[in-house]
């Protein structure tokens, strides 16, 4: 596939991600902070986010598996995930976190479990889409095209 086609794909795909709420304006802000001196900034931040999110999702699964759920701990983790998802523009994940915190406040274990499921689902989607995005960018670079960002 030639560079022009790849670029068209990248643009279309990116627009889709924004439209479907996977990404919001903050992601654009991140891209603006990337330059030739910091060419991997977005990828680095997103990688940190993936590591952080996976760790938190595991912790949450543990927390909610206890006989007596420590809702403070659950809330602290969700708050953390809400913060980091907001920082990279992962809008859908951030929104689930907001609901999660409400449900956690009500000390509703069932509700929390549902939210956790939702989070895992959204996270998997997000990860796959961002990986596709980065893949396209790599392809463009490899095909000799100038960086898209």
């Amino acid at each position, binding site marked *: 596939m030639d560079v022009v086609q790849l670029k068209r794909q990248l643009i279309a795909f990116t627009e889709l991600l924004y439209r479907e709420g996977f990404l919001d304006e903050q992601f654009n802000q*991140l891209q603006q*902070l990337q330059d030739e001196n910091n060419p991997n900034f977005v990828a680095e*931040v997103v990688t940190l986010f993936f590591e*952080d999110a996976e760790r938190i999702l595991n912790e949450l699964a543990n927390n909610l598996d206890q006989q007596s759920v420590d809702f403070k701990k659950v809330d602290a983790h969700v*708050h953390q995930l809400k913060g*980091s998802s907001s920082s990279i523009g992962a*809008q859908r994940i951030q929104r689930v976190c907001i609901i999660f915190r409400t449900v956690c406040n009500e000390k509703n274990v069932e509700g929390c479990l549902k939210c956790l499921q939702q989070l895992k689902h959204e996270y998997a989607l997000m990860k796959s889409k961002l990986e596709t995005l980065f893949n396209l960018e790599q392809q463009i670079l490899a095909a000799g095209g100038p960086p898209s960002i």
Partner: protein
Amino acid sequence: MGIVAESQFHVLAVDDSLIDRKLIERLLKTSSYQVTAVDSGSKALEFLGLLEQEESSLDSSPVSSNTHQEVEVNLIITDYCMPGMTGYDLLKRIKESSSLRNIPVVIMSSENVPSRINRCLEEGADEFFLKPVRLADVHKLKPHMMRTKLKDHHQSQEKDREEDPEEAGSANRRPEVEFRAPGNQQQPQHHSSNKRKSIEEGLSPDRRRPRYSDFVHVGIP
């Protein structure tokens, strides 16, 4: 009055989130500031404590006499919600310290809680940013750093001439910011009348006062 080069501005960033530290560091470096990022309030105080130790042999004049110290901090930007010492606690400690209280402090928070914002500004924070922090927010930092640099420059010139009036009183908060909120969220008038007078005197004409609408962040669900 000397030329103040931007590369001399050094910002201390405090945030327990690795992602947010990386972000704020990039934002600040993009604006040509030197950055030191730490992950807790206590680490921040430790870092700032270097300054205090060097200052203790001098009189209680404010920080940043360039001949005496190697590490100068021109602004502290801190997250509000941190385990252990919150950003608010850190703010208080800084404002209570005779050597540190002139360093401008900016608070960041992911939550838009008017009472929280009020409390921080009342305690002497110069700005309150809603997260995620953006480049436009970072552009607001320079006036605070410039003001302190110029102030300290004048003070070091006048040190022998007169006592610093701020040292005398117990109410030694820096009244740099007047926070106005809509509706019935009025800034308490009773204990701040002196502060209000100094605010009016102290503000430069082009200083933009943060308004409540600034903190209502479009797009946050």
